[in-house]
């Protein structure tokens, strides 16, 4: 009479009876996940190889070839002069990383302090926030001509643009973060005799950190985005510029190398931001842990 379970009923993990999950029960889901991930990536590269290298289906045949790109990347003297072992590669890599680092760090310090100031004082917010709101919807790249005219040199303009991308996002998220802190914590702190500075250090900053780090992840992605665009448009050395230059001189293998490097840099930098966030907010780790 009981309905057959059309939907698969959740099952509890097996235990070895001695209070410990069997290694199988505990690690099986993780191993399965890794295996499926590898298979997914395998399929992606296989498709790339078959569609482009082997059969050149439809318009895929004009795309850079998988095998030649990898060979170029790993060869000691690459045909187009850019590979893992050539100085050229690291020159561009270092130029881009340096710019992102400078822009990101300045944007974070300015953004967080402005964000806190905006949340803290009502009159300052009333005066400054409308200006920010006017500038924010304008896409970062639309600032390129203005920044190039105003900034001293082309590389400086790239840094300024990368800074702008991260600055707006960090300021807004910091302000939202501080405003999201429950009023109760401020009241408790004032009753316990906290001074303004103590409230800033012990309530405002730790309380807003989760929001700030959400903003930082987006800001980091925005940094890389505006770096590549402004490098291409402003024409200065760097990964973005090299991608465009490789395309211009029809060196498709170099183009693939540079895009892959950009992808890796983007991934590693956002992981770095996540890792720093985890370290600074260890109190959230404990809260989120506990029974699966």
């Amino acid at each position, binding site marked *: *009479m*009981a*309905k*057959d*379970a*059309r*939907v698969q*009923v*959740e*099952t*509890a*993990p097996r*235990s070895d009876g001695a*209070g*410990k*999950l069997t290694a199988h*029960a*505990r690690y099986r889901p993780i191993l399965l996940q890794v295996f499926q991930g590898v298979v997914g990536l395998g399929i992606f590269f296989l498709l790339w190889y078959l569609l482009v290298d082997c059969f050149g289906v439809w318009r895929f045949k004009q795309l850079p070839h998988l095998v030649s790109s990898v060979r170029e990347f790993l060869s000691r003297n690459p045909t187009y002069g850019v590979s893992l072992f050539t100085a050229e590669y690291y020159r561009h890599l270092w130029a881009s990383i340096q710019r992102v680092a400078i822009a990101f760090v300045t944007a974070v310090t300015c953004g967080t302090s402005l964000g806190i100031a905006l949340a803290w004082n009502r009159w300052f917010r009333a005066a400054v926030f409308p200006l920010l709101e006017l500038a924010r919807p304008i896409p970062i790249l639309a600032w390129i001509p203005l920044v190039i005219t105003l900034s001293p040199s082309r590389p400086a303009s790239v840094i300024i643009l990368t800074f702008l991308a991260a600055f707006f996002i960090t300021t807004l998220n910091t302000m939202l973060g501080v405003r999201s802190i429950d009023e109760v914590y401020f009241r408790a702190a004032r009753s316990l005799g906290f001074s303004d500075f103590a409230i800033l250090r012990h309530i405002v900053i730790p309380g807003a950190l989760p929001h700030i780090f959400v903003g930082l992840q987006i800001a980091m992605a925005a940094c890389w985005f505006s770096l590549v665009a402004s490098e291409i448009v402003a024409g200065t050395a760097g990964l973005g510029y090299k991608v465009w230059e490789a395309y211009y001189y029809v060196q498709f293998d170099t183009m693939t190398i540079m895009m892959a490097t950009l992808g890796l840099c983007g991934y590693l930098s956002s992981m770095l931001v996540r890792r720093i966030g985890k370290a600074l907010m260890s109190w959230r780790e404990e809260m989120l*842990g*506990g*029974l*699966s």
Partner: protein
Amino acid sequence: MTFDFGIAHRKHGSGEITVDDISYSVGDREGNVVELIDRCSFHGERGLFTALVGPSGCGKTTIMNMIAGYFAPDRGTISLDGVKIAGPGWERLMVFQETALFPWMTTLDNVIYGPMVRAEKPLRQIKQDASALLQKFGLGEFGDRYPRELSGGMQRRGELARALINDPLVLLMDEPFRGLDAMTRQLMQKYLVDLFEETRTTTIFVTSEIDEAIFLADRLVILSGSPAKVVSVIEVTLPRPRNFEMLSSPVYAGIKERALEILYAEAVAAFAGHGVTSDLKESFERRRVV
């Protein structure tokens, strides 16, 4: 003051739940096994109101989820009228702790959801039944409002309506009045008692509040702290229909006394068991002697 529902005319079957020696454990992140329920057995008798009482976090909700069929126990079986439960079904409907009215549906759509999905009757007929039932539950003019526009008490009544329109054989309730403030809670308890006395649907009600359990139930099943075990079963001999005056009767006081004694020991264990050192237990024991 009693609430009259006038839905006695509806056919009300009521099933019988047998929980037979069930155990259940989960693996936490560090890989050690946490036993939630340890060989627990009890009986949800046909047409009776059974209250499961025990300290918080002792696995009461897990038992209810298993009776509802969301997951199966590691060992032991749960059956409805003798048939082993294999999965969720409309015969065993649950009213959850946090309201589970679908926020994106109006109250009326929530109530008609069950019959509509099972398509037993034409939609027009279902809608009529639903608005009649809502009228009876005092939510007549709130049919087209969204759940978040209702107060706590109203949401609870909406959920009861959504369950009862399906004429379930067993009504499972997991601390449904926990979020309400004491006064609304008191009135909802009277509301539920009158509803039960009219429909006599088998009800299994989980709570950690002893007064609520005694006032509502015919039988108390007292569970130990985690892992959950049935510690004792107390029959509530208060006559029906129940009213608030009975709360000060000696019979009530006697039952409460017995239940409190067992529960209090469990509560202290649970209270101390939360990673607190054993000396707190001694300080409690010592203090009780003094």
